[in-house]
């Protein structure tokens, strides 16, 4: 029997490889628009973002299937395989549509809306396999709650993201944008549920303790996360002329995240202690990095959720820092940790080198984005012309491009290692052993 979880991870790793190539291309084109005109910037950008999102989802889904397979509770495996097939075929169709220049023209996923149908259908299959497999498990650990919630919420918010095809929504631009960002905010929350759940699962395996997954604090944090997933999307749209209560709700709810920040600071010491204990494991290193990035990105997210700060940072690269910092620093680090742990690649020195290259260049990348964003925001508010501001920031954009390319190289070196290791044991490692 073929291992569905691992198939999804292979799809994820392939998506990330392509996402990095298109991302590097787009960041070069941002400064030199004539570079490689065969795939112009307005195609390279959605190729990059969609494939990056595919990496996160595919590995998040893979982690869930892996759990079901490793604990041998998986049911209706064939539907899982079908899920994987549809996921891949749709992905290829989306890539083709971008190359052809046919877009849905909205943020993140700019593909034509008909391609949402197969995705929705495959997601139903995923839901069936998951819930049929786990419903007999007694006393669900928090990650099962998170995965189950993530699966359902994705389905709901993905449908919501497509509501614009109805006249009622698209005929009011304000309603359309509000609902668009409402759905996207929660959709990101749904993949976070999959990924954070997997992170907790990996930590449980690394430390050999299952205390956290059943603890009160684990569930309290889950509910704080869920509250933010539901109600904290509007910090993206303070500038959209909708009623004020929509923004105020987000502002109020976002402050509950201070609780999470507080907790991270509170347990700093114990994090350091366990870092010393497990520092020799690569999987742990990546979890540790994700913890640090959680702290930094959460602080940034809380800051830009304050309308008075958002007023200056909105529409600048600070928002990109928020998005990239979270998807790379948090989501990707957890996923990589999961992959390393799952395949047992804990001791490779090559992985350690990649770890440092990735994290250091991400640090430079992140700071550059924030700085150039703040400078742009201030200059535009002072009434400077767009063209003048952009050329003033040119040096920053170069640092952004160079650190972006180094970051991509660090990841590519890591992925190269993964592919190499994987092929050594292929196709045995795709087979589920049956007793």
């Amino acid at each position, binding site marked *: 029997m073929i291992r569905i979880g691992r198939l999804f991870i292979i799809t994820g790793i392939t998506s990330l490889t392509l996402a990095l190539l298109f991302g590097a291309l787009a960041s070069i084109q*941002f400064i030199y*628009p*004539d570079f490689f005109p065969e795939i*112009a*910037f*307005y195609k390279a*950008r*959605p190729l990059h973002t969609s494939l990056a999102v595919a990496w996160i989802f595919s590995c998040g889904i893979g982690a869930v299937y892996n759990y079901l397979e490793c604990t041998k509770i998986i049911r209706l495996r064939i539907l899982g395989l079908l899920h994987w097939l549809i996921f891949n075929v749709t992905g290829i169709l989306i890539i083709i549509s971008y190359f052809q*220049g*046919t*877009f*849905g*023209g*909205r*943020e993140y996923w700019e593909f034509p809306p008909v391609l949402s149908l197969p995705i929705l259908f495959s997601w139903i299959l995923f839901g069936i396999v998951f819930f049929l497999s786990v419903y007999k498990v007694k*006393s669900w650990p928090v990650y099962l*709650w998170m995965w189950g919630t993530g699966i359902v919420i994705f389905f709901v918010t993905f449908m*919501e993201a497509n509501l614009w095809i109805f006249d009622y929504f*698209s*005929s*009011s*631009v*304000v*309603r359309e*944008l*509000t*609902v668009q*960002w*409402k759905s996207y905010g929660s959709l990101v929350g749904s993949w976070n549920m999959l990924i954070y759940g997997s992170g907790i699962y990996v930590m449980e395996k690394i430390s050999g303790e299952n205390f956290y997954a059943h603890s*009160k604090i684990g*569930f*309290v944090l889950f*509910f704080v996360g*869920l*509250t933010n997933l*539901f*109600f904290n999307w509007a910090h*993206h*749209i*303070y*500038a*959209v*002329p*909708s*009623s*004020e209560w*929509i*923004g*105020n*709700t987000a*502002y109020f709810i976002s402050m509950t995240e201070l609780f999470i920040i507080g907790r991270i600071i509170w347990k700093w010491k114990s994090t350091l202690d366990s870092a010393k204990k497990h520092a020799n494991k690569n999987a742990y290193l990546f979890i540790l990095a994700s913890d640090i990035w959680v702290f930094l990105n959460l602080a940034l997210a809380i800051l830009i959720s304050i*309308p*008075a*700060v958002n*007023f200056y940072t*909105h*529409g*600048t690269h600070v928002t990109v820092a928020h998005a990239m910092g979270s998807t790379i620093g948090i989501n990707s680090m957890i996923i990589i940790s999961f992959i390393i742990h799952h395949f047992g690649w804990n001791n490779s020195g090559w992985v350690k080198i990649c770890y440092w290259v990735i994290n250091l260049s991400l640090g430079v990348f992140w700071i550059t984005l924030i700085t150039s964003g703040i400078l742009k925001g201030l200059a535009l*508010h002072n009434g400077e012309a*767009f063209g003048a501001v952009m050329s003033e920031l040119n040096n920053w954009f170069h640092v952004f491009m160079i650190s972006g390319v180094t970051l991509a190289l660090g990841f590519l070196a890591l992925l190269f290692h993964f592919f190499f290791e994987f092929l050594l044991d292929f196709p045995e490692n795709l087979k589920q052993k049956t007793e």
Partner: protein
Amino acid sequence: MKLQHKRLIFFSLVFAYISYSVFVYTKGTETKSGMSPEAHSGKNIFQEKNCIACHQIYGLGGYMGPDLTNVISVKGEIYTRSFIENGTAKMPDFNLQDEEINSLIAYLTFIDSTTVYPDSTIRLTWYGNMDKKK
């Protein structure tokens, strides 16, 4: 935490979410006037050509080009039209028909009528909020 408590919190949140969604779908997002069919088709072209990869509306979108929320009232229709017709070194020429360009202009004119972005007259309050009433 007991299972009943988890369920109670969970379903209360879900209930609040559903109610809030219905609220957002129906209230607080109206515009003063509706969009004309021409502007609506302009919106579709704006999406199909993925202008948002480089431009922003209300500060939302890509970062290579400028925000277009108020381009019509600030820079004028003729100026806007010439960009869309010819492109620039950075912006592609999409070879659009006159009719499509008119629709895009109608769409941008509609967007322009909905707000001023960024609104430099907004006052910031001591608790970090924006006072839009002026």
